[in-house]
Structures are given as C-alpha cells and as structure tokens.
C-alpha cells in the first residue's frame, strides 16, 4: 500500500495538472494594476486602488492599502490613469462580410425600380457565429474606444438569425465567445424583389411565421403521442427554428428604427408572449411613458441619425439640422429623465471613434456620465444574462478592464491600455 501511494498521488496530481492545463487558455502573467483611480460601477469610486488580474479573472480589487500584491504579479503602474469595466455594446453588426441591409423599409417606388438581385431568404435558425470574420482593424478600433464586449447580430433580412456575445480577445472567433447563441434578431425591413416588399407585409410575415411555429409545435406534440396512426406532419424548418422562441421563451430582439416600430414590436411581443427585447430605438424618448410600463430590455443605439419619416426631418432645413444636432442626441438623456432604464449600443455606428463621439454627444445633450457608464456596463450585462461575469470591476468577474487617461467620456481622453479576458490588448 505504502509503495503505491506516492505513485498514486503523483498520478492524481499529474491528472489534475494535465486537466487544468487542458481547460485553461494561455496562462499568461498575473497582473497587478496599481496607483489607479478605479470606477468599479458596482460600488464607490476608489481614488487610489489596486486590481489583481489572474488567469483571465479579476482576483481582487480594492483600495491601495487593502490589496496585497501577489509575488507572481507583473506590476502595471496606473499613475494618472482611471480603470473602468470594459464597455459592452449589446448590439452590433461587426465582422460580417456583406454590408448590413439598410434599415429602412422600401417604398413602392423603390421596390419597382430595384434591379438588384433579390435578397436571400431568411434563416432564423442560422447562428451568426458561423459567418464571423473578425478583423484586427475593427477590433482595435473598438478596444481603443473602450469596448471590450460586443453582441454581434446578423445585419440582413427580417428574421436575421441568432447573435453571439464576444469578448474582443485576440483575432479568432472561437475563443472570443462568451455566449452563443444569445437571441433571435428581427428587423422591420423589407425583402428586395420578393415578398414582403412593404412594411405592412413584413409585419404580416412575422406574425404568420410565429403562428406557423405555434402550429408546428402543437402538431408535433400531438404526433409524438400518436406516432402510430397519424400522418407525419410536414417539416417546416423555418417554423421549427422559431419554436424555442415561441414555446420556450428564448429572447427575441426587435430592431425598432422609429417610435412606431417600438409600438409595432410590442404588439407582436404581446400577441405571442415573447421574451422580447427592443433595440435601436433612437426615438424611444417619444414613447417614454409606454416603455416605462412595459419594462422590456431596451437597447438604445447612440446613432442619432433621425429616421427618414420623422416629423423633425420633413419640416424644413432648420428643424432637420436641429434634429440631427440636438434633438436625437438627447434621446438617452430624455429616457433617463423619464425614468426609463436602458442600455446603450453602438448599432449603426461605423467604428470605435464614431462611438466615442456619439457618447460625448449624448452626454453633451444631458445624459449624466454615471448613467452613460451604467448603460454601457452593468445594465447590458444584466440584460444579456452575464451580470455574474461582466459589467463591473469585482473580484471573480472576467478581467475586462479599460485604462484611460482622464474621464472615459471626455473628448480629450486617451485610452491607454485595455485588458480583455485578463490579457492586455496590443494596439
């Protein structure tokens, strides 16, 4: 017995070590970020704090005096820098090869004139992860803007497909995945060269497909109990792909490009009792009362370009300029004032710099910095169901950290260093 034990212990240790090595990603250095101002979001700001990062996670965060620097830590001196949780953009169309389809429904004249090839058919079951092609330039741009986590959704079609949540860590899509799939995405747009070519057609199409899903699930349930003696039901892949969302209440994101589409989305969500989220919503302030009552996850884009049909855009040049410069950028501020909770996204914005400009514009228009920060960190984490892992600087959470010289949303701010999954990004 005695003779075997050391071998056993060693063997067991070996197995443990081996398995640990197999599960861990690159085991890089442990980092100790010191002398920082820390904005954890989950608690009060630390004027001088320390953050310990080990194996992709925040091991500890606290006031400078209270945190012991581990022996194996590489010191990162954060003198003059502020640490924030990495920002989360809860709706983007990044890394897709084809350009996203235009968000506007086509007028009959546009439809008639279209010579372009018809749009490909919708595939609601399709996971966007399969077609991701991350580009370094794009990733760097977002990191430099402080965004470490993005939800990538497909950009084309009405039933666009299913999104994935990524940490912008490295250049390979696989290791980036935080959650896959996240939600089904729908957009109020039209098909080109085929049905539906009008917005009202799109709405009927969406409803019909959900009814088909309900019907399909019902029939299959009956068939399952009557395999003998019942003709097997036809297989409708589209309807079947929707069953989890209709029957099992997996999340469905509706892209609402103006206030009416918010109401139209809510009607459909109510009709099928969906687990619905609303996105884009850059006129949401015009439906603040309704949104307050409905309490659905609200993903508000910082893209302040007014919708084409808005009355602010069709009553002369003056009002249109005011809409673009003042009224629409104030969307988030107005929602905050009305007490409507929301997350902010970069949907429709070209790149990182555009995102930063847009946040600054929203703040200039009256959104408080605190609200802006929460809307880009803890709130989207909560909506996305990843609040245990992301959204604040807390021990145990994923080490997505942004180090900025100055306040994160200042025009002159420079983002000096970004950690994603505990790994410093190189840009």
């Amino acid at each position, binding site marked *: 017995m005695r003779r075997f034990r050391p071998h056993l212990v060693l063997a067991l240790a070996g197995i443990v070590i081996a398995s640990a090595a197999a599960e861990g990603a690159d085991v890089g250095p442990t980092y100790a970020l010191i002398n920082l101002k820390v904005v954890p979001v989950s608690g009060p700001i630390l004027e001088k704090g320390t953050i310990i990062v080990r194996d992709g996670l925040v091991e500890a965060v606290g006031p400078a005096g209270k945190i012991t620097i581990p022996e194996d830590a590489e010191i990162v001196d954060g003198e003059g820098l502020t640490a924030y949780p990495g920002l989360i953009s809860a709706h983007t169309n990044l890394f897709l090869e084809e350009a996203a389809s*235009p*968000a*506007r429904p086509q007028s009959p004249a546009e439809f008639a004139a279209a010579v372009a090839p018809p749009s490909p058919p919708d595939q609601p079951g399709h996971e966007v992860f399969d077609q991701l092609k991350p580009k370094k330039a794009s990733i760097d741009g977002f990191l430099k803007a402080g965004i470490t986590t993005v939800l990538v959704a497909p950009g084309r079609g009405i039933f666009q497909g299913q999104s994935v949540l990524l940490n912008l860590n490295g250049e390979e899509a696989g290791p980036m995945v935080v959650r896959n799939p996240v939600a089904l995405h729908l957009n109020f747009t039209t098909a080109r060269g085929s049905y539906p070519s009008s917005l009202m057609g799109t709405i009927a199409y969406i409803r019909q497909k959900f009814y088909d899903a309900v019907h399909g699930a019902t029939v299959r349930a009956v068939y399952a109990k009557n395999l003998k003696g019942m003709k097997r039901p036809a297989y409708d892949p589209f309807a079947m792909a929707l069953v989890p969302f209709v029957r099992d209440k997996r999340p469905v994101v509706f892209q609402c*490009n103006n206030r009416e589409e918010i109401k139209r989305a809510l009607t459909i969500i109510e009709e099928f009792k969906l687990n619905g989220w609303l996105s884009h919503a850059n006129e949401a302030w015009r439906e603040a009362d309704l949104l307050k009552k409905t309490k659905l996850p609200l993903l508000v884009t910082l893209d302040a*370009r*007014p*919708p*084409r049909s808005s009355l602010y*855009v*069709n*009553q*002369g*040049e*003056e009002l*249109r300029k005011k809409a*673009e410069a003042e009224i629409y950028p104030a969307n988030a501020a107005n929602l905050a004032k009305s007490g409507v909770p929301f997350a902010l996204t970069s949907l429709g914005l070209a790149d990182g710099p555009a995102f930063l400009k847009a946040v600054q514009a929203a703040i200039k228009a009256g959104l408080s910095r605190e609200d802006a920060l929460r809307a880009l960190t803890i709130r989207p984490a909560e909506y996305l169901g990843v609040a245990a892992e992301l959204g604040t600087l807390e021990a145990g959470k994923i080490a997505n950290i942004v180090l900025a010289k100055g306040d994160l949303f200042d025009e002159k701010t420079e983002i000096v260093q970004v950690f994603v999954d505990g790994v410093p990004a190189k840009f």
Partner: protein
Amino acid sequence: MKRWTVLVLAAFLGGGGASAQGPDSPVIAIRGARIIPVVGEDIPEGTILVRDGRIEALGKDVVLPSGVEIIEAKGLLAYPGLIDAYAFLGLQEITGVAATVDHRETGRFNPQVRTIEALRFDSMHIPIARSNGITAALVVPSGGIVSGRSALINLDGRNQRDMAVKPAAFLHVELPALRSGRVGAMGTRGGGEAPPADAGRILAEVRDLLNKARFYEKRRAFASKNTLLPKPMYDDTLGPLADVARGELPLMISVHSEKDIKTAIQFVAEEKLKAVFYGVEQGWKVAGELKEAGIPCVIGSLYDMPPVWEDGYDALFRNPGLLVKAGVRVAFSSSSATAAKDLPYHAAKAAAFGLDKRDALKAVTIDAAEILGVGGLMGSLEKGKMANIVLADNDILEPRTNVVHVFIAGRPVDLSNRYTELLDKFKKKGS
C-alpha cells in the same frame, strides 16, 4: 422660290390670318349683358357689336345696324375671353400614353422645334377649355435647356394654322426646378439626387450659343454676298437662334428659386434680351428686382406643394398677390392640357390669398395679353380689338359659373365637347 410657296400655302391654311372673316363671321350684337371690359369701368347693361371678327362698338347705347344677329344676354356677364399663358393644349391627349404626348423633345438644345408643327387642332381638351371661357392659349414646348418655340393660338379655327395668332411666340429656356431637400434616413439626400445644376452655368451656355448664332449669321450673310467665300453649313441649333440673338423673338425663361431669378435677371439685362419669366415660385422674395428689371411673370400651376418648407404652406398661393403688390405684371397659366379648363381657378385661388379680385381677372385677360405680346389685339373688351368674348351666368373665376356663349374672332363657338358628347351618348342609352 420655295419660300414663296410656303407663304402662299400658310396663307391658304391660315385663311389669311386670325382675323378671318367670311360666311362664319356674321355681324353680331350681344345685347343687355353686364359688360366687364377689364380695362375701364364695367357697363351694367350694354351691347357689344361685332363685325369682321372685331369689336366694332360697345356701350350702354349702341346703334344696331339692320340684319344684325342679336344675342339676348340680359342677366349674363360679358368678359373678354380668358388667356392661358402657358399650356400644353394640343400636345397632350392621354398624359400616360407617350404616343399622344408631343411637347418634350429629347436633348438639351432644341431651338429648332416649333409647337405649331405638332399641335393637334382637334384635341379633345381644346373644346373643354374653351367651353369654360378660355379663348386663347400659349402652347409651349418643354424639356432640356432650350425647349423650342411656343405658339399663341385661338382655341377655335379650321386647323392649327388657322388658329395661330402668333405661330412663333417665344423661345423657351428652362432652368432647374426647385426640389425641397428630402433627407434620407442616414442624414443623406434621399433617392440619389444630384445637386441641382447651377443656373449661372446654364445661362452661360445659352449666352455662348447666342454669341455663336450671331457670328454664324454674320458669316452666312457675308458669304451670301460674296460667293467666293465658303458659307457655313446650315446649323440646326444656331440658325433658329438668329431672331432671338437679334432681339426679335422674346425668351420665356422657366426659373424658380430666388437665387436663380436674380441670375436670370442679370443675364437678360446683360444680353439685352426681351424676356418673360415662367414659374417664379420664389418670385415674391425678389419682387423688387423683378419690378426694377421690368420682367413680367407667368405663374406656374398653383396645384403644387411649395418646394421649400420654410416659405410657408401657402407660398405658391400668396406669390402672385405679393408680386402684383410690388408692381410686377403677372399672368396665370394652367400649365396643363388635361386641366387647362382650370385656368380661372388658379386666379381665384391667388385672390383667396391676397391678390385683389380685379387684378386676378386682369391676370387672365389683359395682363396675359400684354405679356404675350398681343395686348393690342385681345385681353379686353374694347373697340377695335378681336372679338374674343365670353358670356357667363356668374363670376367667370368661380367654379359654379356656366358659360353660355363663346365667341372667338367674332365667330360663335360650339360649346359641345368630349364631356357633353359622352354624357349625351349614355344618357340616351340608359344602363
């Protein structure tokens, strides 16, 4: 030799001009009407004597010669026939059927085309217009930069040449229309609109052509005298510009924005041309300049939305009143063929928005005549003028009014038209 033949033929077709007489032009007395001469005071109850296509006499007491045909007009109002200063009458039957539409030639410069040569004298729209009191119209070309030559016609005659009062009335130049800035969803101009072409550059091209035309004329004239010199080949663009370049044929320039109107005023002054402006939607903004320059304006259709939101929802309706207030001479148009009969209602609409009612009437009668260069011939009920007369049971600018008689060049005109013919056909048939 050839030219003589053409003239003789034209004279035959035209019956010697619009003041034709003969068995169709009896001596007529319109008796007892309330006469609205437009120039001068109304005559509450008077008589108009018509002979040889002209008004021989009118007044409270007119001595009637023997054998005169008397039209009893007590209770009716007598107006000069209305004049449409910009119309497509005779050049459009069914607007959506291209085969029936002939006013828009292809290409940018078409001074050589003449509407008189395409005018369908038996268009179904002409009797409809004249049975609403319109007796003359300027029939215009459109499209490109130089669209062609318009013709002023009476709305009655044996054929288009017989109807022509002025077979070549204006050379038409078109500057870009005002388009309101409709914004696309992403803050861009929607629909791929190109920025509007610059009026200055367009007029520079026209100036250039006119200069070329002058030199072309000079060379051809000189070479005609000296047969040893080579003569420039006939140029279909420059040749037809000769009379314009000489200042003999006036221009009608379609111009719309404030900026372009100013540019056009300057152009006309520099080139020393006679010109009338058409459209002038933002004319009210530069009314002073228009008055200074002495350029009269033909108003486009009031059945359009104002192109610039900031000008106000009623900008097009208020425009004529503001121009007249500033001293600009103004005429109305239908700018149509299928809705030509609506000419009086454009005038009334302007009167609802500030134009004096009397001025509104003048703008479809005497002012239109003056602007079109026939002020001595028509546009008012005065001795010596062509007998284009309308008898109506109410104010001629009102839609409830029935026109009871129309005379063109002294001839009573058939008031039946496509509408009445079809109604009669199916009334009898029953269904």
